């Protein structure tokens, strides 16, 4: 004879598959939304990065031919006239204001430090970037003038440059991509577990209670634990299916995403083709446990509700449960993340995903995450099993 949980599971899946709402939520949505969202974010980032390096308007107060020339020599920079340059900076019309001191020319003549100020708005990333560029340009100009003076004195300019300091970017391509994606990808994948489980958990417990089918079901000669197992499996399968499809949609998007024209795509580091099969499996493995944990918890919460509507209200906070851990590590680079984070529920999974996306997956961390997630999944199942045993939860008043 077939086991009770299997009969329940089969029926639930059959019923779910005839439900258009469920198809949309758990299957179609992740398949469409993931690529769309990824492309949107990529475009936004590309746009922003490009914007920051293009059409940099700089206002100049005062006059000096060399300064003006040096700035306008940079192709992306444009000198603009503004009647109120500081207000224009505030309004974002210009990204920096260079003020040439009144005594500037005389001071240069007299070989005294000549005052130049760069006003910028640190709260505006574009202004911040412009500031860097202007500063660099003026530095070069300053060195040029110094070199001329030294040459006049017959001193080789190198005398005043004892060191040749150079900076090298050591991060690998994947790390740049990983840090760009380390925030959004874990968020979307954990959320897809939640959105996959939510409608199913609502329907399978509170929905059945409201329609009176749960009581009928419990008069059949199957252990209530078998019923719970069948339902739990259904919720977790739908949750994981949603996460799986989201992951595959994401990987596919990165594989086949048309790279934007020109060189800008190279600077974007937005290809995840470096993700190996093992990396993808690690992500899916971590999500598997999360699916079981969310499935069990949501089913338990749903069984506390008397109606479908009530269950929806109770389950809504799960979205935040999924979001908080992602935000908690948003600003951390992966080597700053404390080890205990790999042992906390949900946080462990998002942290591990961040690490994998960064291209460094520590086997010890993987073991910690899988182990602790297994424990949380078991705890969630036990908790729900205890809720489900109480008869008052099953029979609606």
């Amino acid at each position, binding site marked *: *004879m*077939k086991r*009770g949980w299997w*009969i*329940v599971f089969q*029926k639930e899946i*059959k*019923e779910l598959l*005839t*439900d258009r709402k469920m198809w949309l939520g758990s299957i179609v949505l992740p398949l469409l939304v993931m690529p769309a969202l990824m492309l949107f974010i990529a475009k936004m980032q590309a746009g922003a990065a490009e914007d920051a390096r293009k059409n940099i308007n700089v206002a100049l107060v005062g006059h000096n031919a060399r300064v003006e020339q040096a700035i306008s020599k940079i192709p992306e920079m444009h000198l603009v006239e503004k009647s109120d340059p500081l207000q224009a900076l505030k309004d974002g019309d210009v990204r920096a204001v260079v003020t040439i001191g009144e005594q500037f020319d005389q001071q240069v003549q007299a070989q005294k430090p000549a005052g130049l100020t760069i006003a910028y708005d640190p709260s505006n990333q574009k202004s911040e970037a412009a500031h860097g560029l202007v500063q660099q340009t003026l530095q070069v100009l300053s060195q040029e003038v110094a070199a001329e003076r030294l040459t006049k004195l017959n001193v080789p300019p190198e005398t005043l440059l004892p060191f040749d300091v150079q900076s090298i970017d050591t991060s690998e391509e994947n790390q740049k991509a990983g840090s760009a994606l380390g925030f959004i990808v874990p968020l979307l994948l954990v959320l897809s577990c939640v959105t996959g489980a939510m409608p199913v958990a609502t329907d399978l417990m509170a929905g059945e209670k409201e*329609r*009176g*089918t749960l*009581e*009928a*079901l*419990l*008069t*059949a*000669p*199957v*252990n209530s634990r078998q019923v719970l197992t069948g339902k739990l499996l259904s919720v977790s399968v739908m949750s994981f299916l949603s996460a799986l499809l989201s992951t595959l949609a994401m990987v596919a998007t990165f594989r086949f995403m048309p790279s934007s024209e020109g060189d800008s795509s190279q600077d974007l580091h937005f290809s995840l083709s470096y993700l190996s099969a093992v990396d993808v499996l690690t992500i899916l493995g971590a999500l598997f446990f999360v699916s079981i944990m969310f499935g069990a918890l949501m089913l338990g919460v749903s069984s506390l509700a008397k109606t479908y509507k009530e269950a929806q209200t109770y389950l809504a906070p799960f979205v935040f449960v999924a979001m908080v851990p992602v935000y908690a590590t948003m600003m951390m680079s992966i080597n700053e993340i404390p080890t205990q984070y790999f042992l906390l529920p949900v946080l462990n999974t998002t942290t591990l995903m961040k690490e994998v996306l960064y291209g460094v997956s520590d086997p010890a961390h993987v073991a910690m995450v899988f182990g602790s997630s297994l424990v949380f999944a078991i705890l969630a199942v036990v908790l729900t099993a205890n809720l489900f045993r109480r*008869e*008052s939860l*099953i*029979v609606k008043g």
Partner: protein
Amino acid sequence: MILVERVTKKFKKIPAVSDLSLEVGQGEVVGLLGENGAGKTTTLRMISTVLSPTEGRIVVDGMDTLQRPEEVRKRIGILFGGETGLYEKLTARDNIAYFGRLYGLEERTIRERTEELAKRFDMAGFLDRKVGGFSKGMRQKVAIARSVVHDPAVILFDEPTSGLDITSANMFRRLVQEFKAEGKTILFSSHIMSEVERLCDRAVILHRGELQYNGTLEALFATHGSRDLDEIFMNIVGAGGAR
């Protein structure tokens, strides 16, 4: 077949059924009467093992409901009135088959039994349609078929005709008579006196969770010197209420 022995059920210390004892023999049809909140549903739920008694014990076909609940459930078919509790997105056949499987029937048995019940309840025309679009009468037929798919010895009906039109209610009554002829034990709750009068060998009257009357309708009519069940019921309930 059904033995209820000094059963009390309390919800948060408030008794819904108090010290109830009754017995239903094999092949008997017993009506459970009472006003809203009298404890009819609670009693039927305890017999079907969905609720456990706070005190006392219930035995069905020799099996204690607390000790061997699954054995008890195998022998019982239960139908809740009002909402029939069917899966809207599944077909009538799938609804019946689901319960057939839960009762441990073979797939072949389920198929044969479904065809048989479909013929008997005149459901062949909508057997493979989704329940979502069914009328109350159609739902009721499916729900009854589902509750007896495993050919139970004991059938519990909770207000089976509530919300049904005369045709469907009549069909249900004919069915009860057929089940009785097959030797099934039937306990059903109702507050429709004429229905009880027509179908039952015996009536059990509950009021506020307490047993007010348990005996044949003939004896009831004799003691009250009247054949008006509504009037007798009001008398009994009134007396119970005055305590």
